[in-house]
């Protein structure tokens, strides 16, 4: 997925937010580090990411979207897509 990056959203702040929820170092949350195979994130922890994103960015994300969030790049693209909709 490729989405236009909004200049008013700091992707590094988003990375810090997601890293905090997942309790991983920001450095290890690379764009393509796989949530399940590399970071050990299960569906419940992914939901917590969803909670944090909805609250921080005041967006609505359907639960089904969680399954498509496999790495930070997916999260960033999803948030940008929701904010641009």
């Amino acid at each position, binding site marked *: 997925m490729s989405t236009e990056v909004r200049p008013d959203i700091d992707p590094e702040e988003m990375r810090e937010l997601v890293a905090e929820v997942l*309790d*991983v170092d920001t450095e290890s949350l690379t764009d393509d580090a796989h949530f399940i195979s590399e970071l050990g*994130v*299960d569906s*419940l*922890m992914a*939901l917590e990411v969803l909670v944090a994103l909805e609250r921080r960015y005041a967006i609505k994300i359907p639960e089904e979207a969680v399954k498509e969030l496999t790495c930070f790049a997916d999260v960033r693209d999803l948030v940008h897509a929701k904010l641009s909709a």
Partner: protein
Amino acid sequence: MNSEILSRPRFEGSNICTWIGFKHVMYLIEEAVLEHLRRHGMSPRELYERDGLGVEFVDSDARIATALHMDDLVRTEVEPQPAENDGDVLVFKTASYVDTVRAATATVRVRLIPATEVGTPRLVRTAADLDGRGTVDSDIDGLAAGANAIVWRWRIPYFYCHYSERLQHSGYLRLMEEVVDIFLARRGISIRDMLAGRRWIPVVPNARVRILEPAYMEETLYTVFTVEDIFKDLLYTARFDCYVPRDDDLVRTATGRITHGYAEVVDRRDWRHVPFDDKTTAALRAE
């Protein structure tokens, strides 16, 4: 210097199929930090017997990324952090792995407390709740303050304590698990009912317990469990607060939070996350 500790969850921690409950995940973390202390010349036994110091886990904040199972060999890395409060509080970060999968992480704070002599008289106020599980209501002594809560009043038994008098960290974890059980039963969605009716079990992605003040053996303890937030139909977060009566006040001795979702048991090996149904949401909202 970091430590790496290998351990397995206690058999007791598998209550539903072979999955390990949050309390026993946090026990593993506690044991790993204790082993780290031993390896670095701070044997809890020697600290107590020789130096008159007790090891008190005053804060544990755990995230459970994926379920641990019975028989899992868990490798926990313990990484000391800079001490806080002028060196008074030792801080550790932990990460627990099964093979290469990171199953849980935590931040743990430990204080060395002066141990009182065994037999030191201490005036404690004990309620008459000596039978069963004490008293539970939607409010006791105004502690719920109109919130979506229950209050459980009980007497602290000796086997929740350590150093001959103090309610210990693992005791608070037990209380947290127990008050959830009581809360769900009171709201008509007990663990057994949900298992029998839906094959659902509660699952916990994170939990935290902080000890603020000592609570003593056989004191009356009020545990307040307050649902703070229900996110969509997926997760709910509740606050956990404990109080004891001192003079004319109720003193808060611990606080914490726990987040729950529900999972459906697929078979003896697997489960999948499910959204709350209307009955569950209504029960959580006290409707």
